[in-house]
């Protein structure tokens, strides 16, 4: 039953550890692979996934089937191509892919195999963040088990299709989650993003056609291919298909992550699943999907957490993991913390981002410390406009950094003003 409503996490049991190949198969694993490799053409897989309305779960929300459709169609045996799982979960406030990686690595492996078959890629890479030690161990073990049982390697199930997976452990840099920077990192160069075109689908890793998909996105594939695209669309409550791993952190009663129908109302996630605010704290505002999404205030609590609704409310679904700002935490201090992160993690490739983000951080630090001037607010707003607009930098790092700043300047205008007139933080972060 769980498998029908919560396909991604049904097999995850933290006490028992991840399922081995036999248990995975017993509970419905590898069914999709059997059906697909010997029954469907690669183009049919792309078509099914397109019809399922699966959108990228890493933050950008691009249609998965559409993303694949740009890959040149030669069979894997005739052209070197790559399928890469983006497991570089580094968006502050995000802890959903860890759950899937540690809980059921075989599901990711099967998802990668299916995606690779669809785009006819013979080479798989998991780009795993270096801090996920347990995930790395479990993934390596699952890969070698899958390999020894013939689910990876040459001529899988006698289909003629060959595919294997290599795990790359990263060394800690936020920008590596950006797909072109990720490719540059894998090539042993400083991981700066690339200008597009060429898009990775035509000129990716080592110049070969490549697709980079998020872990959660890939984990959906076995279920879509077993149950069909209509079933998947039916799981969502709005226009998007499937379930979503939502999370909440901050001063709520039960911080955590839950697999829910995509489009679940924000209020339900915070109040029913996270248990509402801790006694003595009120919800003031929140970042709905990680550090690089714009603030929403309490007037937005009744929106559906799907791509379109969150965008209409002025933010982004992002990774779907919300960070709660309570009434006893200083919003200026929180934004300073966020901009410190973005300034530090700017790769330095584009001047506006490299110079602008540290400038923003210094201005915010001055305001928080009590040496800020009213003009500084104009300067911050100008940065929000100039850097917030995509197209001035190679990647979305600076626009992402400006989302909480620009929205915060409006939403917390009184707090900013009070910091300046009262020469410091009236709400000195109480911890």
């Amino acid at each position, binding site marked *: 039953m769980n498998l029908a409503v919560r396909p991604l996490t049904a097999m995850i049991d933290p006490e028992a550890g991840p399922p081995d190949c036999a248990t995975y198969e017993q509970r419905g694993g590898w069914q999709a692979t059997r059906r697909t490799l010997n029954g469907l053409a690669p183009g049919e897989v792309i078509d099914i996934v397109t019809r399922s309305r699966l959108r990228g779960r890493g933050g950008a929300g691009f249609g998965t089937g559409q993303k694949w459709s740009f890959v040149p169609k030669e069979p894997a045996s005739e052209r070197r191509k790559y399928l890469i799982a983006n497991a570089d*979960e*580094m*968006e*502050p*406030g*995000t*802890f959903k*892919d*860890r759950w899937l990686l540690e809980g059921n690595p075989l599901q990711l492996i099967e998802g990668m195999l299916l995606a690779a078959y669809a785009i006819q890629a013979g080479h798989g890479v998991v780009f795993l*963040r*270096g*801090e*996920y*030690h*347990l995930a790395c161990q479990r993934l390596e073990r699952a890969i070698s088990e899958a390999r020894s049982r013939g689910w990876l390697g040459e001529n899988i199930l006698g289909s003629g299709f060959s595919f294997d997976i*290599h795990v*790359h*452990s*990263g*060394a*800690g*840099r*936020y920008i590596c989650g950006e797909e072109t920077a990720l490719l540059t*990192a*894998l*090539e*042993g*160069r*400083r*991981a700066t993003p690339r200008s597009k075109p060429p898009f990775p689908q035509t000129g990716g890793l*080592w110049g070969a056609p490549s697709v980079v998909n998020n872990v959660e996105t890939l984990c959906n594939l076995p279920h879509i291919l077993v149950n069909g695209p209509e079933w998947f669309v039916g799981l969502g409550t709005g226009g998007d298909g499937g379930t979503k791993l939502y*999370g*909440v*952190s*901050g*001063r709520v009663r039960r*911080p*955590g*992550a839950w697999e829910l129908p995509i489009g679940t109302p924000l209020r339900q996630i915070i109040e029913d699943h996270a248990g509402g605010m801790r006694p003595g704290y009120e919800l003031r505002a929140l*970042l709905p999907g990680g*550090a690089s999404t714009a603030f929403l205030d309490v007037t937005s609590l009744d929106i559906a957490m799907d791509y379109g609704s969150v965008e209409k409310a002025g933010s982004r679904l992002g990774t779907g*993991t919300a*960070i*709660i*700002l*309570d009434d006893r*935490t200083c919003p200026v*201090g*929180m934004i300073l*913390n*966020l901009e*410190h*992160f973005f300034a*530090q*993690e700017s790769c330095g490739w584009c001047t506006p981002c490299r110079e602008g983000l540290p400038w923003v951080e210094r201005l915010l630090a001055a305001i928080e410390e009590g040496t800020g001037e009213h003009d500084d607010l104009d300067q911050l707003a100008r940065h929000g406009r100039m850097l917030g607009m995509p197209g001035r930098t190679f990647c979305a790092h600076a626009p992402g950094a400006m989302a909480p700043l620009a929205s915060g300047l409006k939403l917390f205008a009184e707090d900013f003003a009070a910091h300046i007139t009262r020469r410091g933080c009236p709400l000195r*972060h109480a*911890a």
Partner: protein
Amino acid sequence: MSTADHPLPVPMQTEILALAKAELRPRGAAIAALRLVQARFRWISTPHLREVARLLDMSPDDLDGIATYYNLLFRKPVGHHVILLCDSVSCWIMGRERLCAHLRETLGIRPGETTPDGAITLLPTVCIGHCDHAPAMLVDESLHGDVDVKHLDRITDSLRESHR
């Protein structure tokens, strides 16, 4: 005591060459090779960096551009144990500043420094994906969540004990 000035052990050189061979171009193994060196010597010394560069057919400066780019690759010596205390937003909201102040006081060092006995290095780290148990930290490879001051004292005591 440190072997950072000694040549890389031959088995490690062989391992790095094997990593390089598994990649389409040798430089694809850059991060894996540097991590290998660090796992053994705790940091990457300049002589070691030069050796790895030679094995990967890269210039030392090219490889250093990578080594210095990443938060988890150390180009300076670190202590026997490294505490990575998360400084990202969820942990900040949940009181990581107080934990940091406590560590500074009890260890007598600032973030980025190592205790004089060489036991512990304290470093800030970006979000480690344990936000539902904020504040969180990594002590070497082990993950700790819902950290409070008492928890910190227990951990630093046991790290010092094991170093003695």
